[in-house]
């Protein structure tokens, strides 16, 4: 090998090594957002989610809160942060910085239609003493459940437990207890192949959800719509949020014929949408970004909301007159004389 050959090999290898090294450092600093590409299995907190879960959802709160979209939406709606401020005041949790991500699920025992909240597992930084004090001040009780300190505010609606440092489970008391049992028994949703197959396909999104269709709709669809829809088994969706929003919705039908029928239905709705929104270029642009595709029993719909469209939607929202709270008329001291 001549000297110039060695030189070339060294320079080319150097570019590769320096590039990979720089990228690795930058990705490490930024938190390796898409590691799932090399064989993700969903967040580790799925180990607390029961195997019979019918809805599993995830949201990277840090990414969403730090996104340009969120900043724009906050600017359009100044009052939106009031709730977050009050929440921070009460719990010491800053939604923008203290929560990294949340995993939510509903299983057979905590269906939303029964008025019970879903099980929410939040990963972040929490002031455990302050949160416990707050709930106890409001009449909550603390019980020991298999070595964990379960704080119950309302048996049906709110209980929470700190499962690990920086990981809190919130939900109905029985759902929270079940999450402890699930982890101890190793019988989590990670063993549910049907759910995990769908999770693996979408868990690189900033937010995603996998749900049995009937669990998601809960029989609340109008009959006219429900009768038009082919039988759907599973639904999954993911979104990437930064300066715009990119999303993908995937539906698994019972068979291939149903998938084709569903595609026809969606095409029909898209055509109808185009007809009805001709006057609104920003919505037409959105409809143009929608791509419909199908593969076997799966129907996929992807869309993109570019930054310009977010601006347009925000401007529309800003133009909408806010409901004014008119001061109540002073009550007359006495009935007016007729």
């Amino acid at each position, binding site marked *: 090998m001549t000297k110039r*050959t060695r030189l070339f090999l060294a320079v080319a290898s150097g570019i590769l090594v320096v590039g990979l090294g720089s990228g690795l450092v930058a990705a490490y600093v930024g938190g390796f957002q898409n590691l799932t590409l090399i064989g993700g299995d969903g967040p580790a907190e799925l180990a607390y989610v029961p195997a019979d879960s019918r809805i599993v959802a995830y949201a990277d709160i840090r990414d969403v809160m730090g996104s340009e979209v969120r900043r724009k939406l906050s600017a359009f709606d100044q009052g939106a942060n009031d709730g977050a401020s009050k929440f921070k005041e009460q719990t010491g949790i800053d939604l923008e910085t203290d929560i990294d991500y949340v995993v939510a699920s509903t299983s057979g025992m905590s269906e939303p239609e029964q008025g019970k909240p879903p099980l929410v597992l939040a990963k972040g930084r929490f002031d455990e003493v302050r949160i416990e004090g707050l709930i106890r001040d409001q009449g909550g009780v603390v019980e020991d459940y298999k070595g964990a300190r379960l704080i119950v505010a309302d048996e049906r609606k709110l209980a929470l437990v700190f499962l690990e440092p920086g990981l809190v489970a919130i939900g109905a008391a029985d759902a929270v207890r079940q999450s402890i049992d699930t982890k101890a028994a190793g019988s989590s949703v990670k063993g549910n192949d049907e759910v995990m197959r769908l999770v693996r396909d979408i868990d690189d999104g900033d937010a995603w959800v996998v749900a049995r269709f009937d669990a998601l709709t809960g029989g609340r669809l109008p009959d006219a719509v429900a009768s038009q829809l082919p039988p759907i088994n599973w639904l999954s969706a993911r979104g990437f949020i930064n300066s715009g929003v990119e999303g993908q919705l995937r539906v698994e039908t019972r068979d291939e014929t149903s998938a084709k029928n569903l595609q026809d239905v969606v095409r029909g709705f898209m055509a109808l949408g185009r007809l009805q929104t001709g006057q609104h270029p920003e919505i037409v*642009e959105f409809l143009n970004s929608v791509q419909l595709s199908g593969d076997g029993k799966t129907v996929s719909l992807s869309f993109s909301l570019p930054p310009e469209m977010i601006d347009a939607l925000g401007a529309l929202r800003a133009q909408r007159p806010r409901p004014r709270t008119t001061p109540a008329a002073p009550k007359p001291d006495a009935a007016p004389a007729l």
Partner: protein
Amino acid sequence: MTAPPPAQSTSFVTGAWRVFGMSIGEMLWSRRTIFMALVVGSPVLVALVARIVQSAGIAPLRVNGVQVDAVSMFGAMIWILFLSFIVPVLGVFYGTSLIADEVDDKTITYLFTRPVRRGAVVVGKYMAYLLCTALVVLPSVMIVYFLMVPFGQIPASFISLVVDLGVLGLGLAAYGALFALVGAALRRPLIIGLVFVFGWELVTLLLPGYLKRLTLAYYLQPLVPHAMPTGDTVSLLQGALFREPPSVAMSLGCLALAIVASLVLAVRVAEKREYILEQ
């Protein structure tokens, strides 16, 4: 005293290593290098222009009036320039030349009379091809990535880059092995290679049925972490209507099989075939 047969004088690995060391320099500083530099330099140039345009506050690429983000542009370049053009073309030009060039230049006699097995010559040259092309293509991808993707988007896209590098390396290995076999076995291998890449692969990927399984692109495409660009009718047909992509495991398995089978066959052909030099 008769000379010992070449196979016994030098082991296969040692022979391949010696041929590798000799061929890498030949390959790098041949006339083809100019072609390779042009082919691989063009995406870098495109990325540089895009970066300059972007720095001036102008969107380098818009689709339906919507600005295309940097990572999507990089993904489109991987699909359109690297995977669909550069990798197959380098595979054809270099792969077919491994043996065919020695035949055309009438220098194969010098190689085959050395105390090295003919198969080791093929393997050594193939390894030289792989290193040479990989060390030209992959740094080019790296430069394009850092030119196009803003620093803030690296955490979200870095793993895609690593996968891209792996896929392109695998593509170079697969196309190179296949065309090394073609070069060792057939006359006019370059024409056959170009017909395969720009005829057979393009057409069969558009058709419904099983013929697409006899292409390398069919197994490489599912490994790409970026969405396939669907700008024109051809890509729309390829991407949406007739796409039945194999699983990642199947793609990797089939590509590995293609590489090993092609190399083994190329070695066998080189050892059995009698190369007749035209006078």
